[in-house]
């Protein structure tokens, strides 16, 4: 049984998103006999080293064959198992888009797909391995739940929660090793229900994934300038928590979205769709990757040139409200 205590939370953060993934699926293997794991030659990269030793018969490594991995997972799912399949987010979404579409979206088979190193997590390898479009692609497909956890604790909670539903689910893992901790202690996580991390009255930053921690930092910086921010963790992008968005709009002067994803079709799009549908017509500041491929480089370098740091966030928000 997983314990959400301070020591574990610190350890998970040190291990990073892949390590948290490995921890979560170990827990699943111990508690849910139907859970199986598939990977495409990323057994160690995805944090499955302990899993492989403990449960070799529950792990299928299909080699570098992502399309086959999704199809095999679909076959297992149809026969009653709960397959968790993982590969780089870019290969989950773009490369296997048709397999995802037919097997998960159209047939509705309960595959749980884990997108590793979403955003710039593998940015040092260059644009082939970054994933700035996966939310957009997944969100456009019917029936798929899209989750983007804010820290390693939430990654574990999201994976355990996904195993409890019969919905096809995509979980994108953003953030580096030594991932900033958003949740210092246990909290309630429910798919589709946004979490208000802190309350302010001027600006509401609706953030997802790694950007939740950056938004917390930006809020602190802005406080020094007398601007009070709410930070809302929109960990589930689909189905989106419309009530949380409308409430944020009601109670703040400015809405901001923050995502480690292209500004087209991701969280910004999802939030804008809700507002538009409700007849709310006012600008929303979009902080995200501004529709370009960054040069290969370290994670912090790429956040920097994409203006996704807390410092950039602060500047953009200040210029939007002044």
């Amino acid at each position, binding site marked *: 049984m997983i314990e959400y205590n301070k020591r574990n939370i610190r350890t998970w953060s040190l291990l990073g998103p892949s390590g948290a993934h490995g921890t979560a699926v170990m827990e699943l293997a111990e508690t849910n006999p139907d859970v199986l794991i598939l990977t495409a030659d990323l057994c160690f990269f995805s944090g499955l080293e302990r899993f492989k030793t403990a449960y070799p018969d529950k792990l*299928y490594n*299909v*080699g570098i*064959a992502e*399309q*086959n991995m*999704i*199809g*095999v*997972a*679909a*076959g*297992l*799912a*149809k*026969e*009653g*198992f709960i*397959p968790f399949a993982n590969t780089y987010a870019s290969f989950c979404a773009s490369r296997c888009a*048709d*397999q995802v579409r*037919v*097997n998960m979206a*159209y*047939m*509705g088979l309960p595959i749980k797909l884990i997108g590793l190193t979403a955003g710039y997590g593998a940015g040092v390898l260059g644009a082939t391995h970054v994933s700035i479009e996966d939310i957009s692609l997944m969100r456009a497909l019917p029936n798929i739940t899209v989750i983007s956890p804010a820290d390693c604790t939430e990654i574990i909670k999201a994976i355990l929660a996904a195993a409890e539903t019969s919905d096809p689910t995509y979980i994108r893992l953003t953030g580096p090793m030594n991932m900033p901790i958003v949740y210092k202690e246990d909290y309630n996580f429910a798919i589709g229900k946004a979490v208000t991390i802190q309350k302010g009255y001027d600006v509401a930053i609706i953030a997802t994934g790694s950007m939740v921690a950056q938004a917390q930092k930006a809020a602190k910086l802005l406080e020094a300038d007398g601007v009070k921010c709410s930070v809302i963790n929109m960990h589930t992008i689909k189905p989106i928590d419309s009530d949380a968005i409308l409430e944020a709009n009601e109670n703040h002067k400015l809405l901001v979205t923050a995502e480690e994803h292209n500004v087209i079709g991701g969280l910004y799009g999802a939030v804008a769709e809700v507002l538009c549908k409700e007849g709310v017509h006012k600008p929303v500041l979009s902080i995200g990757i501004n529709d370009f491929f960054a040069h290969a480089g370290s994670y912090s370098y790429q956040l920097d040139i994409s203006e996704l740091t807390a410092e950039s966030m602060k500047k953009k928000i200040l210029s939007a409200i002044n």
Partner: protein
Amino acid sequence: MTEIELITKYEDAAKRIRRHIIDMTYNTGKTGAHLGGSLSIVELLAGLYAGEIRYHADDPNWEGRDRVILSKGHAAMALYPAMVEAGIINEAELSTFKQDGSKLGGHPSLNGLPGIEFASGSLGQGLSLGVGVCLAMKRKGNQDSRAFVFLGDGECDEGSVWEAAASASHYGLSNLVVVVDMNGIQYDGYTTEVMDMAPFEKKWQDFGWNTISIDGHNIEQILEAFSQRGEKPIAILAHTVKGKGVSFMENNWRFHNAALSKEQYEQAVGELEADK
């Protein structure tokens, strides 16, 4: 039943399926349907559904059933009447084929029609599904059931077929049977001209499969191939004629997907009747 009676039974089933295919296409009016690749696969499906398949019509989810995956989903028009032969669906339902609101679409889909394991139509995906199903059956200790995956020869251009083929032998899936409908023609013409996959049988063998090459219209050879079991997955390479059974459709790529005029329909029916 003597062996001759048995073969006659399957051949009669094939004749009924073929006649349904012509009627179903004609009923679609100007829409048309995938005639060529449906007519080529008739005996293969008849051989399976009229007898070889493990299936309980009153319990479509029976664990001990064989799983049939029509990866070449455009041959759904042959699958539905074959399922009638097995008592899985009613003959009357065939008249709804491709009509608005029908469960019998141009490609199989998961819409409550019994006996359809997966939606198909996006080529190159069915064999991966078969691998997953066979792994699952082994996990469950189900040693009786097999998965039969029907591929087109043109479909084998898709790289994902070969990803799946490699994994099937890697995992030692003795419960997996592939049937390739080798009618030799794809949408744009002869497979040898569009994309020549020769040496085709050797490819399967090199991927670790046992292969059986047969005349895909010869019931005796089909039954013999289906009865084979071994340690390795089996690929039955069934040499067939696209449009088989109607003279003007045979080996004619124009009838890959086509509508039928009244004259064409009458001629086709006439030829099938004369064959009785």
